[in-house]
């Protein structure tokens, strides 16, 4: 198994505060890596450094063996790295289908074909498939802003998959989602992982969700990696229990 994502020695400090302090890890193809840790341990900052939203103060990020540190988020996305955000980030005034087309359109053709070509960039079919996959039929033409929170969350996650990414970083996909919807979401993510061999990194507080979905779990505390391993191993790790699960 080759590493899709290699992170080595990423550091990020804001003023005098070091939020991420030399984090290194690999993610292999088809893996679902869970990333857990107490609030403020640097998980989201780490994500933002990997994805080019923030410039790391040190260290290196490789995707498929290619150094991508310092690339802009849009460039990374073109390389097949996709993400969701902690807070809901759909486009409320666009319809569900439009949201999905938007999420995929930059992966089709070039600037000229996106202007002079068809309005849906040839993605209507793919969008409808995605809508079906996430069970959002009936809502395809609704404005995203009018959907319930859970439905918007599904859409948000669905958007991350429109460009056919190799690697998806999900920042608290389960946050604020009710129980029924949660099961649905987990099942969908597992299905994509199976069917498309997509690789995930998931930040999540819902332990149940992480333990049942992820193949490997990394625990962060105070900007450093505390533990890494199979869900069961991590669950049994005394340091983790002390720092995190113990609370």
């Amino acid at each position: 198994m080759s590493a899709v994502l290699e992170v080595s020695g990423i550091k990020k400090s804001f003023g005098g505060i070091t939020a991420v302090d030399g984090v290194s890890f690999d993610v292999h193809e088809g893996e679902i890596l869970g990333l857990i840790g107490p609030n403020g341990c640097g998980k989201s900052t780490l994500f933002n450094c990997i994805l080019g939203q923030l410039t790391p103060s040190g260290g290196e990020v490789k995707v498929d063996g290619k150094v991508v540190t310092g690339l802009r988020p849009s460039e990374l996305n073109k390389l097949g790295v996709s993400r969701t955000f902690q807070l809901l980030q759909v486009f409320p005034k666009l319809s569900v289908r439009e949201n999905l087309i938007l999420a995929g359109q930059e992966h089709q053709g070039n600037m000229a074909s996106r202007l002079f070509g068809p309005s849906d960039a040839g993605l209507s079919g793919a969008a409808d498939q995605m809508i079906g996959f996430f069970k959002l039929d009936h809502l395809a033409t609704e404005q995203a802003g009018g959907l319930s929170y859970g439905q918007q969350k599904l859409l948000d996650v669905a958007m991350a998959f429109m460009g056919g990414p190799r690697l998806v970083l999900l920042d608290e996909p389960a946050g604020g989602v009710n129980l029924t919807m949660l099961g649905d979401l987990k099942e969908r993510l597992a299905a994509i992982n199976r069917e498309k061999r997509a690789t995930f990194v998931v930040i999540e507080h819902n332990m149940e969700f992480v333990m049942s979905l992820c193949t490997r779990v990394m625990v962060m505390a105070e900007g450093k990696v505390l533990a890494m391993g199979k869900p069961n191993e991590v669950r049994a790790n005394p340091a983790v229990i002390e720092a995190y699960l113990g609370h």
Partner: protein
Amino acid sequence: MSAATKKYLRIAFGLAVIAALIFVPMNFNRYGLFILSQWAVMTIAAMGLNLTLGYAGQVSLAQGAFVGIGAYTAAIMTTQGLPLIGALGVSIVLCFAIGWLLGYPALRVQHHYLAFVTLAFSTLAFLVFRNEDWLTKGIYGISNIPRPHLFGFATNKPLPFYYVCLGSLGIVSLAVWWLIRSPWGRAFVALRENPIRALSLGIDTRRYTLMAFAIGSALGGVAGTLYAPLTQYIDPVPFNLSLSLDLLMMVIVGGSGFYFGPFLGAMIAVLLPEWLRFTQGYYLMLYALAVILLLIYSPTGILGILDRYLTERRTKAASALREVAKPKLETAA
């Protein structure tokens, strides 16, 4: 009423408006035709700004300067005997290029600084129009600007030239309609609503921002190219900062980010003062008051009122749908 009937009604209404714009003015006097032509020209400029501001979310205070660049290009070239259509091409290229270059410094910093850069540009453009006598004839202005011959027809009479303006408005409307429903238009909306999310979806926000601004500016140039032969005389004064602010007002008052916003906004800005002229010295005061009251009532402009109403209905419909959708998802899970 079913969705299909509604759609046909809407098309029928649109056709009626277009037919009215074509046929009703045939009986207008020259004044009425001039005002309507002015409305068409200002609508084009406002559509450009609506693209920049309403769709892509960039505040430009230089749209009036781009109208000026277009007008001067047309005036200078056509008084030298060159065809207006050539001037149109030059205006578009020139305004597009200047818009692109102006956008660069603004991208380095937070987005509201584009407003400041364009404010400065607006003043600079005015000074160039006024001071570079050799090119623009300075404060004296350029007179005797000819109206074009199109397909062998002279358009120097008010009615034919109104059709030139209306036709241009039609073409621009179609082009803008195409643009905003293309993936570009979607990308513009995305970078207005949430640039960070847009970036994470692979949308090159810098390039799209520059494009939106450059295309919007180019439409300002198109409007200017028509403005020069419409008034047949131009001097620098009409293209100062206040035109840019007027255009901004048109976009906001009509409804920023709505396709039909500029049409209504230009109508308010061009026609409302004319209707109020019967009040003599009070007409501009009343106009200002009307704009203020409208904005207090609906800060999102005229179309914002409509949108609010539609959103309310849609939310109701959507929550009804959710009720239907819920059991399905639950059974699926």
